[in-house]
């Protein structure tokens, strides 16, 4: 009864390949949901929401001047990914992160790729997150992005495309784990019957990747999570990960640098720190080095890092891989460094900095999405088809003034997924963020954060703008 009035419409639907016909990997789920009455389903959803609030699985919103804690809306209907599809995603992500790390190493050392004319020097040097201090610095294992959250979407035909790489401080993995714990309780039998792959070893894998970086080669290096503090919107995640890994969560004021070695202040005196999983952006980690007004950071941290006495994950300066203009060059990087064709597609991208692209962009502003290169979280964007004439005029001016700072892409209609909306099930747009760990090896826990735009027709999945999440079930077979 659940899907009685469901309309797939003209979208790629994750569950329905045609009206009234589900993909085989969704069959068991459909049967189970059909057994539930509407009120039973609502009741389960309410129980879930209450349990999240009680366990403090919340994020902080600063809308009303004072921060309020909210739960990240969670939808009861899981997204299902069959084994073969996951295998392709996994290979694609591994290939991509390998190329990105090679690229970062190259850029901060020989710059072979620039000399060979594949990526223009001025694009690299003008990246907001480019860090000259990192030039010729030997980083542990040659790795810059240790934890990457790569956003994937599916187009009208169901092809997986990379939307962006988040190589600074990607968040969301705690929701992946918390959602799973909740779902196992709500649908225990279905979960077993469908043969879902485990994800609860993520914290263990993360700790392994961190320990691998330790400059002191000893059995039990001291790793910590560095948080901006309890008022940060992702604070729950920081403390969740620290607890799951069994390591300390520290704030800037807990750390102190003496003779270029980082220590934490404990009741027994100072204790040396080897690896810092920092959840603070480059700009804020060291007021002596970056922003003088930062109260979050640790004075002297960068010097300790450059002396090789402490490891940071992710490495400072890794943000250039996030730059939206750099995204344009990633397929070329894969070909250049790995001599392979990209496994995962990209969204067609136009650069105003390139002569012929610029004219095309200006002529087609009403059909394109224009993004500012250095922004994230859905800010600084022009949604062409729904924009006003004056907004387009303003963007045209800004593009002409500073072509380097923008990219343009066609509007991709994200795939949809059945979602509980009020007392009905309707299609809502979704994306997908798996988490990629790079240490001695690349490891990806089978799953990730499926974000869903809860507003009808909306393509914006960000939690700050009305997005929610779903559990993601990667199947054994």
């Amino acid at each position, binding site marked *: 009864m659940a899907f009685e009035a469901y309309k797939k419409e003209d979208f790629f639907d994750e569950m329905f390949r045609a009206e009234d016909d589900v993909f085989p990997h969704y069959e068991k789920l459909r049967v189970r949901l059909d057994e539930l009455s509407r009120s039973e389903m609502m009741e389960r959803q309410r129980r879930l929401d209450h349990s999240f609030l009680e366990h403090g699985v919340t994020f902080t919103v600063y809308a009303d001047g004072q921060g309020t804690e909210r739960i990240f809306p969670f939808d009861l209907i899981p997204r299902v990914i069959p084994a073969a599809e996951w295998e392709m995603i996994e290979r694609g992500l591994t290939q991509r992160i390998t190329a990105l790390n090679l690229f970062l190493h190259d850029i901060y050392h020989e710059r072979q790729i620039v000399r060979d004319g594949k990526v223009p020097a001025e694009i690299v040097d003008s990246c907001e997150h480019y860090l000259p201090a990192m030039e010729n610095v030997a980083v542990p294992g040659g790795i810059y992005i240790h934890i990457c959250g790569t956003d994937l979407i599916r187009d009208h035909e169901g092809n997986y495309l990379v939307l962006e790489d988040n190589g600074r401080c990607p968040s969301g993995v705690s929701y992946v784990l918390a959602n799973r714990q909740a779902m196992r309780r709500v649908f225990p039998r279905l979960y077993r019957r469908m043969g879902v792959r485990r994800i609860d070893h993520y914290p263990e894998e993360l700790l392994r990747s961190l320990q691998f970086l330790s400059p002191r080669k000893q059995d039990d290096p001291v790793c910590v999570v560095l948080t901006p503090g309890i008022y940060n919107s992702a604070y729950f995640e920081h403390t969740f990960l620290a607890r799951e890994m069994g390591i300390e969560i520290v704030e800037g004021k*807990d750390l102190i640098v003496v003779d270029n070695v980082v220590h934490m202040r404990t009741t027994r005196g100072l204790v040396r720190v080897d690896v810092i999983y920092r959840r603070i952006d480059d700009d804020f980690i060291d007021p002596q080095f970056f922003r003088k007004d930062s109260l979050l950071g640790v004075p002297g941290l960068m010097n300790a890092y450059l002396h090789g006495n402490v490891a940071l994950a992710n490495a400072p300066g890794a943000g250039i891989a996030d730059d939206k203009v750099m995204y344009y060059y990633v397929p070329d990087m894969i070909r250049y460094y790995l001599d392979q064709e990209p496994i995962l597609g990209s969204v067609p991208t136009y650069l105003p900095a390139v002569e012929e692209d610029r004219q095309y962009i200006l002529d087609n502003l009403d059909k394109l999405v224009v993004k500012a290169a250095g922004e994230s979280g859905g800010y600084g964007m022009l949604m062409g088809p729904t924009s006003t004439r004056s907004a387009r005029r303003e963007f045209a001016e800004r593009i002409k003034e500073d072509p380097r700072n923008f990219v343009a892409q066609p509007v991709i209609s994200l795939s949809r997924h059945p979602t509980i909306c009020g007392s009905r099930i309707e299609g809502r747009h979704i994306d997908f963020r798996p988490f990629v760990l790079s240490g001695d090896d690349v490891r990806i826990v089978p799953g990730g954060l499926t974000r869903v735009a809860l507003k009808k027709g909306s393509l914006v999945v960000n939690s700050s703008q009305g997005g929610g999440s779903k559990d993601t079930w990667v199947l054994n077979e």
Partner: protein
Amino acid sequence: MLSRVADALYWMSRYIERAEYLARLVDVNMQSILDLQAGEKESEYWKPLLYTFAEGDLISEARADLDTLDVGYFIALAKENPGSIRQCIALARENARSIRDQLSEGIFVELNSISLFLQSDEAERLWHRAPEELCRRVIRFSLVFQGLCDSTLPRNEGSHFIQMGKNLERADKTSRILDMLTYGDIEMPSVSHANVLRSCSALAAYRYEFRGRVSTDSVALFLLFSSRFPRSVRFCAEAINTSLHAISGHAHGHYSNEVERITGSLQGELSFSGLEAIQQTGLHDYIDRLQSRLNEIGQKLFETYILLPSAVKDVTVSQRERAEFFQYQQQQQQQ
């Protein structure tokens, strides 16, 4: 253990103990108001509570219109009272949130639930319908919290900081409540012996020890010097001393830092004192001196373990930073 974490554990525990005492006081007082005789004013019953537990300018304002003020509500939930039960629990939760990784899931969930409840309209409604029920819920939460600490936390440094927060707060509150017996001297309605004992959860234990005899002297002896009752000041001082030595690893009877020295000396004094000690200065002055020593213990504890280990403090911490830390601690105490 991180100094900041030790500090947060300590304050979380103190605020919870404080909330429990406040809730019990309000509950006891409301019960006794039921026995009001004709001609007695209800506000007379609330005066001593307000005098003891409310401080600052805000309260002198509140006291001015005492006849109309709902003191019970003021202590329990009033938004304008920074020391309300609601606020204590909110602060305990704030501290807990910053050290969630150190707590068992059960502890956080219980604390989070009571905090969400006290912030809600439901709490307001419950207060107006059955205020004693709200008090009991807070008391019950505190007892569950203690039980969870006891049964789910490893006995490491952190658990000793939790114990110290609880015991220091207990010693402070027990002695303050005892002080209410002296209010007759300052033209304040004094509180009955039974209510003082009830407010410290001590009535049954007291009766068992002293049978029918009730006098200010014997109540004072019991609440200050009992070696067996877990809320007596002496018992708390012993517990703090035990925690301190467990943390430092030093043998009892010796001290390795200032906080151990003054705690040990207080414990010794309480163990070997009796009525004469109180009679020398009078009960009120005796309690006054006791409280400043308890404050000193809190202060030295902070300087020893939280501020920075003394060996490195001079090299690494600037004067300004130290001043900030002190300021921060003052804020915690006031809230």
